[in-house]
């Protein structure tokens, strides 16, 4: 069954366009999607996922598994960086270990979206409140990352211009960076519109809903290009980091799936929860780390998250986690 799920996932347009991007780089084509077009797609995806999540959140309300699930998600985004840091310190200095650790505590919105489209193709239901969990997992990971740096390098050089503490900048990056802000903002707008202006929902849907799958495929073409360009960096990063970038998601997915079982989530939501735990951020966190931990080498945290974990998750991970959940939650099998 696992293999058939993997194959089913492999042959969907988003994954195939991701491959096309990878192949473009490998064979040396000059295919590129110039800036700021990928930014257009990424803004669109965040806006649309947030808005749609908001619509559904309005319908589902905050009762039932909603608040416990969100609390568990936040807890995972605090916990994962801590045990990741312990592992990473075996080979990396404190700055790099903290930056990579924060990356794995946070999430990848595109992996989440790909998992949603996978669920749709499996005709499995999932809930809008999972988007709220997604939105709330970026900030804590960033903050834990910074705390780990403080811990690992207490006598660190003062950031220029920062008076004493640099918490203002850190909190700003954690809570107000553009992707978190747009996602949360669109979620709130979705909730408000679903509640107070239901007739305008229908007018948004051709944009936020109908185009979604195509734009995702187009964006993944670019992500394939970018991920493949990172392969060189990876070689330099060495086998320890590559191994970490495959094994840590598997381990986080296992923890996530067990928590999902404990929370009594239905299979669709359980997959999304697992994917949140297993994915790593290459949007909000790298931007925050570049700013607040410039001592860390960006090619480490970007290449692992984007060059290994992201492709691994969207190609093999999602169907694998689905199979795992089907095992753990037998009712769903």
């Amino acid at each position, binding site marked *: 069954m696992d293999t058939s799920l993997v194959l089913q996932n492999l042959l969907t347009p988003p994954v195939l366009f991701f491959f096309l991007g990878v192949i473009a780089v490998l064979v040396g084509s000059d295919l590129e999607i*110039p*800036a700021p077009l990928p930014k257009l797609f990424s803004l669109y995806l965040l806006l649309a996922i947030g808005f749609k999540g908001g619509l559904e959140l309005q319908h589902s309300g905050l009762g039932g598994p909603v608040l416990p699930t969100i609390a568990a998600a936040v807890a995972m985004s605090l916990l994962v960086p801590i045990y990741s840091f312990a592992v990473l310190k075996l080979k990396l200095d404190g700055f790099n270990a903290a930056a990579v650790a924060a990356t794995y505590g946070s999430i990848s919105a595109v992996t989440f979206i790909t998992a949603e489209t996978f669920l749709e193709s499996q005709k499995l239901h999932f809930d809008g409140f999972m988007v709220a969990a997604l939105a709330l997992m970026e900030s804590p990971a960033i903050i834990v990352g910074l705390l780990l740096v403080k811990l690992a390098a207490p006598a660190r050089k003062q950031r220029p211009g920062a008076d004493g503490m640099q918490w203002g900048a850190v909190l700003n990056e954690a809570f107000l960076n553009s*992707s978190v802000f747009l996602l949360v903002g669109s979620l709130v707008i979705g909730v408000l519109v679903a509640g107070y202006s239901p007739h305008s929902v229908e007018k948004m849907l051709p944009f936020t809903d109908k185009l979604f799958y195509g734009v995702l495929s187009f964006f993944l073409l670019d992500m394939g290009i970018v991920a493949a360009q990172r392969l060189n960096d990876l070689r330099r990063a060495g086998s320890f980091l590559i191994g970490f970038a495959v094994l840590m998601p598997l381990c986080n997915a296992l923890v996530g799936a067990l928590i999902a079982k404990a929370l009594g989530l239905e299979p669709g939501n359980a997959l999304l929860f697992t994917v949140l735990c297993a994915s790593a951020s290459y949007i909000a966190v790298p931007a925050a780390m570049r700013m607040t931990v410039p001592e860390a080498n960006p090619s480490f945290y970007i290449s692992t998250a984007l060059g290994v974990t992201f492709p691994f998750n969207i190609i093999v991970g999602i169907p694998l986690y689905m199979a795992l959940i089907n095992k753990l939650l037998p009712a769903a099998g």
Partner: protein
Amino acid sequence: MKRVDLILSERELDAVIKAIEAAEAPGYSVMRHVTGKGPHGSVSEAMDFSGLGANAHVIVFCETGILPKLREGIQPLLDYYGGVAYVSEAEPL
């Protein structure tokens, strides 16, 4: 007069502009979307979608007297975050 060329990450642009204004330079110009390579590795526009951005090139035409103040504000940023700063001669057309 002098021409100062600064090349550094877009993410530090605000701090650099603050330093230029603090030095009371008469003006400045900024070009974004600059890629390149330096001691800290190479910078491309590939991660632009993530808000990480690329480099920026800042040009300041100013009197020689402004240079010390400018250096004072900018050098710590370059030391901490990377980037380069060079001065050359320039005369009004």
